[in-house]
């Protein structure tokens, strides 16, 4: 849906002369594209205005770095600026002085305070602290019970505030109980409220005065639109918040609210909420959110996820076997499990620039199900069969089908795909066959999933070349405006899947395309 900003920028620069320098003339339409992209990402329009002006000032007169075109140069400036604004101060929680420490969670209704309380408690407990959850939401029906249930889920004690009508009384009693029971961090869950609600904001202030919290975290929904500045500012003015939690980042909102909130409060975004499960709570990475706001995917998170979840040695071993054409059904099953560990293919693909469109087309779930069935079949085989598929005769297949709840036909289908994979793998070992491999892949019907499924540098699952680590990648990305250059993506096995990639240079394109673009440009002009 969204064309990546870098593509748009390159378009707007394509027909311009004087490309060596960014000038007032050639930058104008590009700045408009930046403005649009930020607005579409829900960055507040005032923040956008200021941001675009700053980018313009910085960009004007700058020599375009060799190897970059002006569009890439501008992206680089925009990206750096975004990271600079989003990042900055340290996101560590403040635990200075003697405990118990108090963390207050505040925010609008439905922003995700209670869930974030549970996630934060879990995280702190894992760090060796002893959190105590204190429900202070006496307004919403069953809110106290909700935190109690959440507390049970993460195995953290919850103060029983039932029957105490006033939040101030609750926290008074809770602090005493925390001292008595040796809890060293109190996490205070407050009721959601509108920032314009004088009475309820007053209540928050009195809680703050009594508790003297070391952290006041403003919980905001990543899907928030233009109003993010208004609510964040009001909460900040009333409470002097110390940080922000951006919830529901597992959605597909571009998250421009992060920039809006950071701009008005100047307080660090400390955490992001990334799922309904209690483990879905992560540190905030300004660079990743920056590229997300710009619609450029999140390659680094993907790489990190792969590194974290995939057993590197195992993958290496599988890869070697593949290249030597010794890949067995057993290995096939292992490689499916490796992919399974990464979680939902769809969400993985969303992180890769240019793959968003593909994700729409693919029935990710059906593919996942299929893989599950493959594994069931392989699990129903004897070890011997797994190691040597050649011995599978009709009788054996019938037995396996019964064991896995499938049919002989299904098993033949699986074997077919397995054989094809083996064949392709063999090819991969030889240089210069990549193109052929890709065309074969699309014929197999396994499609992109197969691409992603095969361990090894050429496959879709990115693996770092031995001589490269994440830090280095991050450096490279930073130098290229937050994106990895196409050569490196190619190395990671994420080469552009037929032209979806943003930063990739594409010197020639089909005529039809150019025509379309021309029409688009015309339309664009009219608009203005």
């Amino acid at each position, binding site marked *: 849906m969204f064309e990546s900003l870098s593509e748009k920028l390159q378009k707007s620069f394509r027909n311009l002369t004087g490309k060596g320098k960014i000038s007032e003339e050639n930058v104008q339409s590009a700045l408009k594209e930046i403005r649009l992209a930020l607005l579409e990402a829900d960055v507040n329009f005032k923040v956008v205005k200021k941001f675009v002006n700053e980018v313009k000032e910085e960009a004007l007169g700058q020599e375009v770095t060799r190897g970059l075109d002006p569009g890439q140069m501008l992206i680089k400036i925009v990206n750096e600026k975004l990271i600079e604004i989003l990042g900055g101060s340290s996101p560590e929680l403040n635990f200075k002085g003697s405990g118990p420490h108090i963390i207050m969670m505040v925010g609008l209704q439905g922003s995700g305070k209670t869930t974030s309380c549970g996630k934060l408690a879990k995280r702190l407990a894992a760090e060796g602290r002893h959190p105590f959850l204190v429900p202070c939401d006496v307004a919403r029906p069953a809110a106290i019970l909700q935190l109690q249930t959440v507390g049970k889920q993460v195995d953290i004690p919850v103060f029983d505030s039932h029957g105490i009508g006033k939040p101030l009384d609750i926290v008074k009693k809770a602090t005493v109980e925390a001292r008595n029971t040796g809890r060293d961090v109190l996490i205070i869950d407050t009721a959601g409220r509108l920032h314009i609600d004088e009475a309820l904001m007053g209540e928050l202030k009195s809680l703050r005065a009594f508790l003297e919290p070391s952290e006041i975290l403003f919980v905001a929904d990543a899907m928030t*639109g*233009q109003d993010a500045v208004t609510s964040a500012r009001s909460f900040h003015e009333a409470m002097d918040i110390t940080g922000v939690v951006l919830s529901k980042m597992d959605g597909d909102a571009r998250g421009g609210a992060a920039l809006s909130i950071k701009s008005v409060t100047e307080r660090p975004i400390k955490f992001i909420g990334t799922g309904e499960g209690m483990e879905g709570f992560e540190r905030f990475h300004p660079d990743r959110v920056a590229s997300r706001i710009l619609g450029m995917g999140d390659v680094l998170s993907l790489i990190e996820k792969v590194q974290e979840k995939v057993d590197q040695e195992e993958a290496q071993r599988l890869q070697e076997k593949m290249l030597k054409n010794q890949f067995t059904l057993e290995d096939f099953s292992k490689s499916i499990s490796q992919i399974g560990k990464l979680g939902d293919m769809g969400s993985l693909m969303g992180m890769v620039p240019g793959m968003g469109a593909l994700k729409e087309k693919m029935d990710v779930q059906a593919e996942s199900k299929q893989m599950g069935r493959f594994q069931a079949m392989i699990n129903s085989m004897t070890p011997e069969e797994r190691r040597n598929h050649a011995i599978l005769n009709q009788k054996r297949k019938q037995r396996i089908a019964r064991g896995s709840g499938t049919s002989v036909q299904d098993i033949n289908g699986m074997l077919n795909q397995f054989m094809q994979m083996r064949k392709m793998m063999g090819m991969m070992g030889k240089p210069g066959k990549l193109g052929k491999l890709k065309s074969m892949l699309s014929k197999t019907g396994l499609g992109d999933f197969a691409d992603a499924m095969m361990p090894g540098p050429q496959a879709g699952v990115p693996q770092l070349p031995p001589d490269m680590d994440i830090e280095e990648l991050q450096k490279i990305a930073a130098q290229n405006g937050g994106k990895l250059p196409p050569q490196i993506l190619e190395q990671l096995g994420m080469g552009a899947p037929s032209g979806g990639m943003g930063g990739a240079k594409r010197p020639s394109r089909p005529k039809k395309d150019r025509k379309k673009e021309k029409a688009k440009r015309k339309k664009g002009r009219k608009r203005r």
Partner: protein
Amino acid sequence: MNDEKKKGFFSRFKRKKNDEEAQENREEPVAVEPEQETEPEDKPKTGFFSKLKAGLKKTTDSLKGGMDRLFLATRPIDEDLLEELEEMLIGADIGVQTSMEIIERVRREVDRKALKNGEELKEHIKKELLRILAEIPNKGFNLDHNPTIILVVGVNGVGKTTTIGKLANYMRGQDKTVCVCAADTFRAAAVEQLQIWAERAGVDIVLKEGSKDPAAVVYDALERVNETNADVLLVDTAGRLHNNPNLMNELAKIRRITTRDFENAPHHVLLILDAVTGQNGLQQAKKFVDKVGVTDLIITKLDGTAKGGIAVAIANELNMPIQFIGVGEQMNDLLPFNHQDFVNLLFKD
């Protein structure tokens, strides 16, 4: 301090709005307080229009400052004005595309010299907004089926359960017997929350203690409705992000179950949308339409400063009527949506 410098940029924005808001809002503690909320000013206690006005008051006020300045009849129409106007529409979350379209139409009128001053410009924009809203088919929110099965869906934290409480109360006010179904088996204490609402509204509730299977609860509820001959069944579902295929499929399954037992059910699939939602609202709506055939829209939390403009974009793009708006946490804080009023109030000075 470091903040000082940054604040400078926003202070203009802040002063302008806050001063006005301060004047009017402070004497009028917001909708959350039940008694005061009902009629904070000297408006008659009955009549939905006045209630809508009260509910939309903050919405209007925050937009008004800008509008008034823009529409000073003396102000000539120039590029600056049009740009400001575009920003203002965008600032209301109406969306870049829709805002630009509106401005484009206005620009054409300006080029034709059909609009002479700011005042006429204002009328024209009002017309444009109304035209967009008027294009949306709205057959009203009928409860004619017997029983009328209503599925309530949306992303997390938009106010589904609260809205169901209000809807149950509203329908009971129309002499309907209502049954609510606690099919949010995922979120902690969601069932208990709905239970409290059902009690408040005095309606029947179907729940399954400890069940993790929403479809089973819905199945029970359908049986209950068959037995009790209730007029309306409101099904509360767990909030889910529209880009989570598993959860969306679960919702589709719930929908299928209702279809099996009753003809043409569900008769309404209500998408609840938080007014603070930005452009992602459109994605949400599209996915929910795709998976469970959303029929109507409800915008919640319009008692804040968010304008809920994305609803205009959604309604526009998906041809979906907005049925109600939520303006507070109390049972009566639900109003039928009226686009004429909505636009009028946005521009009321």
